[in-house]
């Protein structure tokens, strides 16, 4: 949060700081909250946090972030019983207003993009071959394509890509009947024939 700060947030946080230091006995003061919870899980300036399994948000396209927040809010994503990380995310989004989503998207847009550290090691050559199917939508450099609704993959936490590809393959994500783009991914992810193929393609994405 560098530039985009609402006056309300400033005033309320100042009030809260003062109230917390009130005379002994005046405890448990109420704090007004906004909906900017993201960094607790997703790391400082949205760099991602493997310990929470929360992916990087910095650098995520505004249109994609908005769609996913709306999907979480509507229960299109994060309601499948086996989507553990999605279930963790869903309650955060469930109560967001359109204004809050817009505020969060703006806030996230302010964070500096830094490519994630590679942690997955597979067969890059085989991954490259498999990626040809992905490139059609996500672009040859995994840079994403808004017109096709396909987000950038390059620079994302590879452990997150791994989880999501596994979830798509197993139908833990993308099975909701209103998840138009997700259902495409369920189909496409099946071109990866086994888990090793998933690891390989993520390893190739790491090179882009």
């Amino acid at each position, binding site marked *: 949060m560098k530039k985009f*700060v609402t006056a309300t947030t400033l005033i309320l946080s100042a009030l809260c*700081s003062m109230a917390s230091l009130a005379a*002994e006995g005046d405890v448990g003061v109420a704090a007004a909250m906004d909906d900017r919870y993201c960094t607790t899980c997703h790391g400082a300036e949205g760099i991602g946090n493997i310990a*929470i399994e929360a992916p990087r948000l910095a650098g995520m396209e505004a249109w994609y972030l908005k769609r996913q927040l709306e999907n979480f809010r509507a229960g299109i994503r994060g309601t499948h019983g086996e989507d553990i990380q999605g279930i963790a995310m869903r*309650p955060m989004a469930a109560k967001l207003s359109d204004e809050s989503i817009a505020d969060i998207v703006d806030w996230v847009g302010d964070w500096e993009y830094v490519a994630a550290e590679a942690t997955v090691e597979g067969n890059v050559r085989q991954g490259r071959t498999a990626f040809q199917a992905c490139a059609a939508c996500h672009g040859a450099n995994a840079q994403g394509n808004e017109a096709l609704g396909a987000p950038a993959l390059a620079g994302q936490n590879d452990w997150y890509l791994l989880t999501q590809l596994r979830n798509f393959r197993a139908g833990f994500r993308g099975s909701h009947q209103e998840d138009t783009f997700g259902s495409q991914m369920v189909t496409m992810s099946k071109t990866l024939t086994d888990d090793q193929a998933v690891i390989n393609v993520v390893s190739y994405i790491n090179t882009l």
Partner: protein
Amino acid sequence: MTNSVSRREFLNLLGAYGGTSAVLQAGAALGFMPSSSQAAEIALQANSGKKVAILGTGISALTTAWELTKAGYDCTLLEASHRPGGRMFTVRSGTVIDEIGNYQRCEWDNDPHLYFNAGAARIPSIHSNVLKYCKELEVELQVFVNESKTAWVQDDAMNGGKPVRNTDYSSSMQGFISEMLSKALGDSQLDSSLTESESETLLGMLRRFGDLNEDMLYKGSTRAGYGSGGFLDHGTKKDVVALRDLLKARNGGSVMVTTQEGTGSGPLLMQPVGGMDRIIYAFANRLGDRIKFRAPVTEVMVKDDGVEVAYEQNGVTEVLKADYCFNCIPSHLMSGIPNNFPDDYSEALNYIRRGRAYKAAFQAKERFWEKENIYGGITWVNAPIQQIWYPPHNIHGKKGVVLAAYNFGGANYTEMSQQDRIEDLLKHGEKVHPNYREMAQKPMTIAWHRMNHMLGCAPRWARDRGGWSDKEEQMYETLRQPVNGRHYLIGDQSTQHSAWMESAIQSAHYALADLDQRVRSEPV
């Protein structure tokens, strides 16, 4: 139903008992108290002029800040949340539970007796350093009643699901155990390690421990209270619940050890009058504006001559330069904050898992438990809510706050909606108290796994229940060493007995001792 137990039955139940002599040898250790029975004497070199950045305001951070401030260090504390204290958190009228996705504001009556310690709640007598600070900072304490023999034990599988009094359960269990053990004493394998005189002493003790009759059989005990009479008329014994029936309760182990575990439980525990956060505010109010609230840390860089900590406050990124840094930010949150820690240090930090814990409480319209002769203590329920606590303070007052669930492990409450959590606690509680649902006002719940700026409860180190592996011991030692002599990890994550305030305080003392040594050895 049978009231006594055959030897065969006992042997079958017991399985094998090869460990007797080993247990006897362990007696040599008796008489020693845990090291924590002595409060630490902190004597830091005064007026070093050093600047210290303290990250977080859990009790380890506050201890550090308080000791350093007294010695003349220049401390700044950075707290991401709107409140100090971390997992020392008391909920009362007006308190916000900042659980992500489940924001709650407490609307209980505004009464000093009506509070809920949502995190740390009990202080054992041997936690000398916690007690030392309570004394030093003039935090008034009162007795916390950890066990009430009139509270209940409930398991759907026992007694048709109807609760039995703790005393019925524990007196009978004591009786049956004594009866079985006295029978086994005749067995050559067991008594070979005992002299005749020792056997006699043991038998005598068992007879009293179990309230056995002259035939060394358990036929019920008035310790469980009377079936009728007892004051104007002679008391009559209650019917004995058969051992087999008692064994249907799967939470019996907890019932039997509540007052006995030396590391943290006991018949006498303490609590601050008015809530556990009285300790936190006693520190925080003395530290004043050294604490910056709503100031999440965004980067920690250890340099040759100090530490640079970036943080955000009011939308502006600031950099705090300090000579030293004490950090109690939970390890799983540190992995989302850019830093330049060495690889082995980061590996150890990332190894610690975040614990789950869940608590819930409500304001009771009336002190209904007192009408059931319960004054404090714990009811054990074999359901995810596990425990019901009755407030030991404000006896015979109008209302009270009942702790309606305490699941250390969290079960699946984290994923449940507030509505489902409330229904769950009411559903299980009313098996014990028929008027529970009617009595419960404005339940509050807290899933620590989702608490903003915490995302976890007590850290968990050992992957194996059997104990710490060598690798884990090694990683623990790595984290106990300051990075470049500048950055100290503190908090219960940096101890081998997490979840206790005493551990967190001792982690601070350990780090302070190291710092003091370094400062003293610097050339003047």
